[in-house]
């Protein structure tokens, strides 16, 4: 059997996001098992373990599942990721953190066991700025951009990048932290109301998202100038604000909705036979899709590993090789029943981060759905690469690692 543990959180302050993600993740593997008999003929086992977004429970879950022969982990928590990075390198298991975790893990030269393609936070920041550049006619010079962020490792991630970008494009960046959980954001939004920034970028998670969108609507901030990272752009976040949320934008690194061919199979093999992991409403929602996307990539990496190893029952080290050799093309996505769902990418020894493109989606309150307003926008690698190099080198130095891929 192929063991891919699902460290999920269906309880605690971030359960609202954790639940659909875990469901998407589970359902895809169920589909593979039901439809194809697993991957390469090997069944996939997905033991689920509840972390409640709590680092200690994360350790417990990791320790209790790794003995089962786990091939890869995807804990959906920046905190747990940081904790697992050194442990998993020592244990020789792959850590896959799409769109979250430690950005500089994109540098495969230092982080042998971590992969975070197709995009990371810094990519997100850069894509957002690029989109804004486009929106304001190619120049952000003299514009004011405010970043509202979750006052934690996760929220702080984009600041460094945005500071660089501010220098490069000449906009003025104001960063306002919001303490977790973030039910009270009056002072931050009054500040926004007073400063009247041209754009507001937003890095939130959990209840903070709903409150921010509500407050933005309350102060009548133009919603189409308010852009959230992909973790702040789910249906859950916008629905409570009702019509007020109309026009809110968020990044996304994959498509949403159930209009992809794969859902026909899902319906046939998973939903209808009652094997779905969650309720029907969640299917095709933003976070569900993302959980599914992570499962797709892991499954593809395993497939690649099987191909490289020449046998189906691959071990953790072989799966890592699969991750490193993974190439996902548009054609492959279409084959999987997800045409144009995600961007194509190809990993290398040094590049564990992928192209980093993201799209912008916008909330249509009346229709109650997200619509894509752009295609994939590529990030500004010129700015990002040196930052990634610097941060990962600092880590290498602290941890006493030597660079690979020479």
């Amino acid at each position: 059997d192929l063991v891919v543990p699902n460290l999920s959180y269906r309880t605690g302050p971030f359960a609202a996001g954790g639940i659909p993600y875990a469901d998407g993740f589970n359902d895809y593997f169920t589909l593979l098992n039901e439809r194809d008999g697993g991957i390469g003929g090997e069944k996939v086992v997905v033991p689920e373990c509840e972390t409640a977004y709590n680092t200690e429970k994360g350790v417990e879950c990791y320790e209790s599942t790794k003995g089962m022969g786990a091939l890869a982990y995807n804990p959906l928590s920046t905190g747990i990721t940081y904790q697992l990075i050194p442990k998993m390198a020592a244990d020789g298991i792959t850590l896959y953190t799409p769109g979250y975790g430690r950005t500089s893990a994109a540098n495969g030269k230092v982080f042998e066991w971590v992969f975070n393609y197709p995009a990371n936070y810094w990519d997100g920041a850069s894509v957002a700025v690029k989109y804004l550049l486009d929106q304001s006619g190619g120049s952000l010079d003299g514009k004011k951009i405010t970043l509202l962020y979750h006052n934690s490792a996760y929220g702080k991630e984009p600041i460094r990048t945005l500071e660089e970008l501010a220098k490069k494009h000449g906009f003025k960046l104001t960063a306002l932290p919001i303490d977790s959980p973030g039910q009270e954001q009056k002072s931050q939004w009054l500040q926004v109301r007073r400063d009247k920034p041209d754009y507001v970028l937003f890095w939130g998670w959990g209840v903070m998202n709903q409150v921010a969108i509500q407050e933005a609507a309350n102060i009548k901030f133009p919603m189409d100038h308010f852009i959230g990272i992909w973790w702040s752009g789910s249906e859950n976040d916008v629905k409570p604000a009702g019509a007020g949320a109309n026009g809110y934008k968020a990044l996304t690194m994959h498509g949403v909705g159930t209009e992809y061919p794969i859902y026909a199979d899902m319906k046939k093999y998973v939903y209808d036979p009652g094997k779905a992991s969650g309720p029907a409403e969640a299917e095709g929602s933003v976070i569900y899709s993302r959980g599914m996307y992570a499962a797709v990539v892991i499954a593809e990496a395993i497939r690649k590993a099987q191909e490289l190893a020449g046998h189906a029952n691959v071990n953790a080290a072989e799966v890592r090789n699969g991750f490193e050799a993974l190439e996902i093309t548009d054609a492959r996505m279409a084959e999987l029943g997800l045409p144009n769902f995600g961007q194509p990418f190809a990993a290398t020894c040094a590049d564990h981060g992928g192209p980093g493109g993201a799209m912008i989606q916008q909330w249509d309150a009346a229709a109650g759905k997200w619509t894509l307003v752009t295609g994939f926008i590529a990030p500004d690698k010129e700015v990002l690469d040196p930052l990634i190099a610097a941060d990962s080198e600092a880590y290498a130095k602290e941890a006493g690692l030597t660079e690979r891929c020479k």
Partner: protein
Amino acid sequence: MPDQLLYAMEVTLNGLMAGVMYALVALGFVLIYKASGIFNYAQGVLALFAALTLVGIQQGQVPFAHVINAITGGHLESFGWQLPSILAILLTAGVMVVLAIVIEKLVLKHLVGQAEIILFMATIGLAYFLEGFGDVMWGADIKTLDVGLPQGINETLESVTDSLFGYGFFVDNLDIVAALVAVALVTALTLFSQYSKQGRALRAVADDHQAALSVGISLRFIWVLVWSIAGIVALVAGIMWGSKSGVQFSLSLIALKALPVLMLGGFTSIPGAIVGGLIIGMGEKLFEFFLGPLIGGATENWFAYVLALVFLVFRPQGLFGERIIERV
């Protein structure tokens, strides 16, 4: 008028409003502390539970659907009704009273006369239990609560201030409603506790359980009474906060915003809760607004506590708390 002054006024106004929202939660604490010397940590969870129940009842959710489905493999979800808000609120209030009775029967009754810290611990146990129970009963997903309260900027105030100062102040309609409700609650509860026989009995119980029993005050009745009231106050807080941020686990964490309010106002004073709320709300907002940017922001959480701490150093029983009797 100079801009800074205008902003300060606006922030102050909003701080006061935020303070009222904290006070709503603090009120429940005060009631229970006053009547039993119990520092009820579960107050936040009570608010969450009330809000969950309200949404569940209003939208006709099947309680425990999740468990039932897990066991029977069925797909129960909803009764398919949508109740009017008022009816749902009344029903929820009823549930809170039942909850109070159950808590008294299963927990408090057995802990008569124990040290404060033990009672405090028991309420934390209760908080855990209720949190799990609420989730099992109604599910952990995020829910939207809408009982028709107005939200968003108050246009009248904005235009009035705009014409006066040339700058329209922002005040949230929901906050205004909350303020009105809070004032009404505080007035009613103060009158109740100071001037009624039950109010006196309530304070007696807080002082000495045994002596209260010995004069014939039924602890059980008093406790059911205050826990019911506290439950209903929690429902009010739950409605206000839930309308603002949706109903989900984090709602229970508003308890942490109420603690400094409580400390500053005094654990035993109902008016203290509101005055404390106003001071804390205003203080933390002004600090965050003017000094926050200089030291990195997100100061509100600790500043509220530090502010309360400073007050306490001068008045160890809080602004309106009962004097701590020190005699030998």
